């Protein structure tokens, strides 16, 4: 016994880590496979005179990593561990693969959009502009008006519905509203646009109707279910003790809701509403149908065509003049503006949620 322990081993073998890959091995292998593939691609690019393709490098390198780690783990650790490692690496690969389009998209939008992201872009419309110059003022005005109107319709309806579902709703009506709100979240946006068109062209008997208010109706159809769902979730987590304390003081139910329940959850409600606005502000298809496109600024929701920022991007891309580049530049600048607005709204929502969330003293 003692002979065994005394025998001086060249390296201490830990029975717990024996027969296992070291903890840094997967990361080293991931970087290694990326490096190897990158070298191969660089050589290929140099020999054929082509461009070095970073996306293909990342994708192929990640695939190679999945195979290498499976084989190595199988040799060192056995089949069960090898399978485990394979799945771990695949799961990591899925995440990396999903990041590639996001990064590529943000990168292209920022680099291409910067060309026309200037003062002219925000101070002029496309009226009488052919070729270079011009801007998206009319589209930004339209987007703000249409989205604002949609919010004005959706927020009261969505809030009251959520209050009904949480505070009053029992039985068949409440259950069917919950169910159909869920179904409504799945309505394709273009169908909402077609509905607004069908509705107003029948009511106003104008077979070619285009106006901003119709766009607001279509957007609120998409926005209401989002507002209802997020508000409902927030109202549900308001502690019942608060309501009961209020009832015990003799406060009527509606005042309890207005003065106790809503102030407690106002941060969450605001977050949900902001996210809902961020969702509909980028909608293109319904506005293409019912609001149409125009080159001039239109401040009236109820009269004639109205441009919006997403439709502006689409229109600049789809109907360029004889020189394409200025139109494309405007499209990219519009896309950059749109992304910035959406990201800002998202950031705002998270900030509101963080700063104004109620602090329960427990």
């Amino acid at each position, binding site marked *: 016994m003692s002979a065994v322990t005394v025998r001086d081993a060249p390296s201490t073998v830990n029975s717990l880590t024996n027969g296992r890959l070291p903890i840094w091995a997967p990361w080293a292998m991931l970087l290694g496979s990326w490096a190897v593939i990158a070298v191969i691609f660089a050589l290929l690019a140099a020999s054929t005179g082509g461009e070095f393709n970073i996306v293909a490098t990342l994708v192929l390198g990640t695939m190679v990593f999945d195979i290498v780690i499976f084989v190595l783990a199988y040799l060192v650790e056995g089949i069960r561990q090898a399978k485990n490692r394979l799945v771990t690496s695949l799961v990591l690969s899925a995440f990396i693969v999903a990041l590639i389009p996001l990064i590529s998209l943000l990168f292209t939008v920022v680099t291409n959009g910067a060309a026309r992201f200037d003062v002219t872009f925000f101070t002029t419309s496309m009226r009488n502009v052919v070729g270079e110059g011009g801007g998206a003022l009319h589209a930004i005005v339209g987007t703000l008006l249409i989205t604002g109107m949609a919010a004005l319709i959706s927020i009261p309806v969505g809030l009251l519905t959520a209050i009904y579902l949480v505070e009053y709703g029992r039985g068949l009506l409440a259950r069917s509203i919950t169910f159909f709100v869920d179904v409504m979240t799945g309505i394709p946006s*273009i169908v909402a646009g077609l509905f607004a068109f069908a509705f107003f062209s029948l009511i106003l008997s104008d077979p070619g109707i285009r106006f901003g208010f119709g766009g607001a109706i279509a957007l609120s159809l998409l926005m209401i279910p989002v507002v209802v769902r997020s508000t409902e979730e927030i109202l549900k987590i308001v502690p019942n003790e608060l309501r009961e304390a209020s009832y015990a003081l003799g406060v009527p139910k509606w005042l309890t809701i207005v003065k106790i329940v809503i102030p407690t959850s106002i941060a969450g409600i605001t977050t949900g509403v902001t996210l809902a606005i961020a969702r509909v502000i980028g909608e293109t298809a319904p506005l293409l149908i019912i609001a149409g496109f125009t080159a001039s600024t239109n401040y009236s929701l109820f009269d004639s065509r109205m441009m919006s920022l997403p439709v502006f991007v689409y229109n600049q891309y789809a109907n360029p003049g004889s020189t394409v580049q200025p139109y494309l530049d405007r499209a990219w600048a519009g896309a950059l503006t749109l992304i910035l607005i959406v990201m800002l709204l*998202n950031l705002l929502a998270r900030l509101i949620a963080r700063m104004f969330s109620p602090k329960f003293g427990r």
Partner: protein
Amino acid sequence: MTTTAAPGRAKTRPADRIFAGSTIVAGSLILVALAAVAVFLIVESIPALLADPAQFKGSPSSFWAYVGPLAFGTVWAAFLALIIALPISIGIALFISHYAPRRIAQGLGYIIDLLAAVPSVVFGLWGIKVLAPAVTPLYGWLVDNLGWFPLFAPPVSGTGRTILTVAIVLAVMIIPIITAVTREVFIQTPTLHEEAALALGATRWEMIQMAVIPFGRPGMISAAMLGLGRALGETMVVAMVLSPAAVISFVLTSSQNPSTIAGNIALNFPEATGVGVNALIATGLILFLITLVINLIARVVINSRSAFSGAN
């Protein structure tokens, strides 16, 4: 209303009734709106069904011959997108719920949610200007080497504006929604099940196979259906990226692609007149019905889930 209220019952005030009434009105308004969508689409579709089909774009033999290729393209593109997106989304959901360190998991979730925040028209622009040129050489290689395989039959598209490119962009767009739903379900897996599996000596993957996947299966199915519903109705990417033709074809890499209902509406509606408008609205009605059925099934599956496990 009696002035002598029964003992123990609160007095109903007018304000209470007004407030409760207005919430009921708002709730019912949603049901009315959904019904109105169906009614008005049907009313506006009827002229298209009665009209002479020669007036439609491309002069098809009947309305159904007009819708057929579009409906096929819609389902085919959405199906391809789902095939691509589902494994990736489940991988990401597992990564966030069970693999990533707890501290950074939420941040990773936000990053994936960022994808959902990008407007579809920007995805369209990216698809046509970045992705399509990037995949064109790959398609050339596929057709040259795998041209015997029916999905990659020659001739190859020279622009990359094929249904496969559309499906890739659609997949990127539906990844966030599928990930969000499956992540929620995976997180709800009873910890006791997971710990029991690990205590019996299971590796992490075996634990996921035994505890997480069976628990999350209904959630995964309904997430897939929700993603499918989103892909079916997506408009701008198809309108901007695809080079359409009125064909029914499974080939992924050709320049003759079946268009989708939504893409076709977006491309043709601005110039449509007369019965052409009604025809487009009728195709929209069909799209509405397809997505409605898919979403109904998904919701029924989700709602049936809460009852079945006694462990949570």
